[in-house]
């Protein structure tokens, strides 16, 4: 009995880590745009849905090779992200943060409505990247190969982001823009281009999250809303704008949610995630790893 229980817990934790990895990727997407522009980009939710649906269309409907589909979907959503910046965001006559945030909500409604027109409202499945045979782990918990793919791809994405932001000139330029836009512009960084890249990056990240979770939980035109909002919650939980915090926030949220769903009731799953968030905001309003935002005059 005790063995059974610990086995169950292990299972919940594995599921929690998987979903937490997804939240972490989404949170990264939120952070990148936040650091570049100071806004919350709610279209991030739609990037996730689009990633999943593009993958579904290419793999299931057009029978395209998996790797090619993955790259095509990612590029496609990155382009949509870029278009959002080039179009409405750049041409908005007001740069007021509230206006821009609501603009992203308007954009996401347009995308969601269009996606529903194109793909309908049904949930659709996407095949796993490498079969569904469960792998038995030490201690008796099992893991499906897709979970391993989620971990592997998440770690890879994190490493690549780290390399990009720490080592490459463009990454450094984006960080400089995040710290101080005007100073960055003075050193010859094209700030507008950095903002454009940040939207494309977030699009790609959202798409990756949507694609790797699709084989586990199926996908639909609005699957990204809850995932996206919880990714946002993970970003806030870790400290908004903080990259290590995004990973930590995602994992904590995923694991607690999974444990809560398993031990209390699966109905309470969504409420638990947001309850944890409110609790943390109440106790440590800056998030686990955040310092709060410094005053900008």
């Amino acid at each position: 009995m005790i063995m059974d229980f610990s086995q169950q817990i292990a299972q919940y934790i594995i599921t929690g880590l998987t979903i937490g990895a997804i939240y972490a990727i989404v949170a990264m997407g939120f952070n990148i745009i936040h650091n570049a522009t100071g806004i919350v980009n709610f279209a991030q939710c739609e990037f996730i849905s689009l990633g999943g649906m593009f993958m579904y269309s290419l793999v299931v409907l057009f029978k395209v090779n998996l790797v090619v589909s993955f790259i095509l979907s990612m590029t496609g959503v990155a382009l949509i992200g870029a278009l959002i910046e080039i179009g409405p965001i750049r041409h908005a006559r007001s740069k007021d943060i509230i206006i821009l945030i609501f603009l992203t909500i308007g954009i996401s409604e347009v995308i969601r409505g269009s996606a529903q027109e194109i793909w309908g409202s049904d949930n659709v499945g996407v095949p796993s990247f490498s079969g569904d045979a469960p792998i038995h782990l030490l201690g008796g918990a099992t893991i499906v190969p897709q979970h391993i793919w989620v971990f592997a791809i998440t770690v890879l994405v994190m490493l690549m982001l780290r390399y990009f932001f720490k080592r490459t000139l463009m990454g450094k330029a984006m960080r400089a823009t995040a710290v101080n836009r005007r100073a960055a512009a003075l050193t010859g960084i094209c700030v507008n281009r950095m903002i454009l890249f940040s939207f494309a990056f977030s699009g790609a990240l959202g798409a990756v999250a949507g694609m790797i979770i699709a084989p586990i939980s199926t996908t639909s035109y609005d699957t990204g809303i809850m995932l996206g909002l919880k990714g946002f919650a993970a970003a806030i939980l870790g400290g908004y704008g903080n990259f290590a915090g995004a990973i930590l926030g995602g994992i904590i949220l995923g694991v607690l949610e999974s444990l809560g769903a398993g031990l209390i009731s699966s109905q309470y799953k969504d409420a638990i995630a947001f309850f944890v968030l409110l609790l943390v905001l109440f106790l440590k309003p800056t998030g686990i790893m955040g310092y709060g935002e410094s005053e900008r005059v």
Partner: protein
Amino acid sequence: MNIFIKHKDIFGFVLLAVMVIILPVFVKNKYYFIVLNVIGLNTIVAVGLNLLIGFAGQISLGHAAFYGLGSYFSGILTVNYGFPLWPAMLLGMLATGVVAYLIGYPALKLRGHYLVMATLGFGIIVHFLMGELDQFTGGHDGLMGIPHLSVGGLLFDTDLKNFYLIWGFVFLSMLAARNILNSRVGRALRAIHGSEVAANSLGVNTADYKVKVFVLSAMFASVSGSLYAHYITFISPGSYDFYYSIQVVTMVIVGGMGSLWGSLFGAGILTLISEALHVAKQYHVIAYGVFLCLVLVFLPEGILAGIYNFFVRKKTQKLLT
């Protein structure tokens, strides 16, 4: 002329009162009254929310929850516990204020988007609890048989009577908002909106004022929610979801942030557009999104002010050339 400018908002209030009183002479259709009542209820929420958005510069994505708390406090207290109606409404308003304080206090101490997340999460939790705590709330089936409000012997049981009741509250809430904005608190809020740092240096406790105005805006929503519950006499969680929260913020922005009359206009036009778009069925979401994007990109100061500025600018350009 001077007196007119100084008191032009009083002129507006008189005009509003006259219009509300004489409108039923011209409008006879029951359907129009239902729409007008919904506009009125939305206006009350939008006016309160505008205090927060337009003057404290903060967004709440959880006002559906405060609206819902008002409805459910009124509904549960009167149906399940036989509370008298008006005290239940007042109690709901106060309780909502306390809840808003607990949510807003930590989030508003910080700059940035913490209130967005806190209210968003709170909205989702409240919406969830409305469905799950079915022994109190009636669950997803909703709560039925909520009594109509009454004053003395007058029972507000028709759309027309509720029209007067709801628009009476619209009038009062706008008057209250105007007086708040013209008071010490309002001056402090406007100072915060101008420059938070400058306001702080002049001894305005900015965090404190932001929390206060957030609580106040939640109470406006609660009152509107109570009125809704007593008007429709049936409430269910579907009316208080995330989309309603977004919709009321949209009303404030489309009407013009920081403009009381703009909120009335925004609530009116968006309620009418939603009604009209029911015809478009599946294209509803797209059309709504496109409308929102167009307004935000081209008329960020709100539709009324945007159009006004457009023409004034044209005129001045003509004069210059």
